[in-house]
């Protein structure tokens, strides 16, 4: 299984976890977001209605958006704040919207946006700092559901070696 690692932490803090993750995958790519210019979503709807599939903001996020499609699974490395992921991670997730269309359908009794690509995304989270693991796992389940994918779960960074046991 090929693996995309999207690291929002300082590289030196994340390196040991990255090494553990990539060692378990035949093909991998690591994107460090801290040196990149990634702006927050501004809710303009251009990715749905003006330039479908493309974000209106011309920053460094496009490269990550393309990479989600090229790898079987994506694992995010995130800091925490206020018992949740921090805003850098949340901004990345908010900007996943171009992966779905504005059209909606019903999945398991709830409305969902129709996925833009025929791909079952797999998203996992490794977090550094204090947070509620059970809640982060639930949130990741819901995030994945919104994009027609599956969550690999949420684990503390120090558990990188054992995390996602059935997948990587």
């Amino acid at each position, binding site marked *: 299984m090929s693996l995309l690692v999207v690291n929002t932490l300082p590289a030196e803090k994340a390196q040991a976890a990255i090494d553990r993750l990539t060692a378990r995958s035949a093909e991998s790519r690591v994107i460090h977001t801290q040196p990149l210019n990634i702006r927050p979503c501004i809710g303009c709807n251009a990715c749905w209605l003006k330039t*479908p599939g493309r974000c209106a903001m011309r920053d460094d996020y496009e490269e990550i958006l393309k990479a989600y499609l090229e790898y079987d699974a994506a694992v995010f490395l995130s800091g925490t704040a*206020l018992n949740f992921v921090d*805003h850098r991670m949340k901004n990345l997730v908010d900007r996943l919207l171009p992966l779905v*269309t504005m059209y909606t359908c*019903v999945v398991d009794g709830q409305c969902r946006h129709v996925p833009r690509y025929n791909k079952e995304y797999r998203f996992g989270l490794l977090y550094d700092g204090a947070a509620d693991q059970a809640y982060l796992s*639930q949130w990741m389940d819901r995030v994945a559901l919104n994009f027609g994918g599956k969550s690999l779960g949420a684990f503390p960074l120090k558990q990188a070696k054992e995390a996602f046991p059935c997948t990587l």
Partner: protein
Amino acid sequence: MHLVIISGATRTRSKSNTAKIVAAFEEGYREGGNTAETWFLSDRAQWDGAAKAFEQSNNILIALPLYVENIPGILLEFLEGLTPKSAPGTQIAFLVQGGFPEASQSRCCEKYLETLPEQLGCAYAGTLIKGDMFGLGLMDEKEREKPLAAFTEMGRHFAETHRFEKDVVDVFAAPEYLPEKELRMFKLFGRPVQKLFMGRMAKKMGCQGRLDAQPYSTGR
């Protein structure tokens, strides 16, 4: 009683559905002599003022659009920059509006919001949830009157109770899930109606391609 409202919407005030909802809510809250002030985080020039208002007030409402099952990144960034209060006595209530019609879509976010005030040294005063708000910005003023009047009523309620009581907000938030009959209708007619409606919106925005285009398709 004075209320500090912080809008965590990402859209500029003129295009923000949250701003329209907050204005209607504030109208109801102000009746009977209460006062309120609203800060918009979409304008970064307001962040210092909003932080000061948070610091000085003990009655706070945070309004937000649901963004991928939780609060928008810019609101999280703002909250991360606040100094948690050391003295008790401040309460935070939340108003969450979403595009999907079901209240159940906002429950994961609500679960987080129940824990958030404690992180900021404050008490939790409930969450008001309402879905199906995407079209608010597309309506003319007359069409918006009815949905916004419901928020004005909730503003009146909040002025009396100073919190969102679970039994009241659950009725307001309904439906929790769409009824079977509506789901069947949606499955039958949803796609053609959406194609027509969204196609028109896209044309107005200058879209020249298909709404289900795959610009980064890899063939994998």
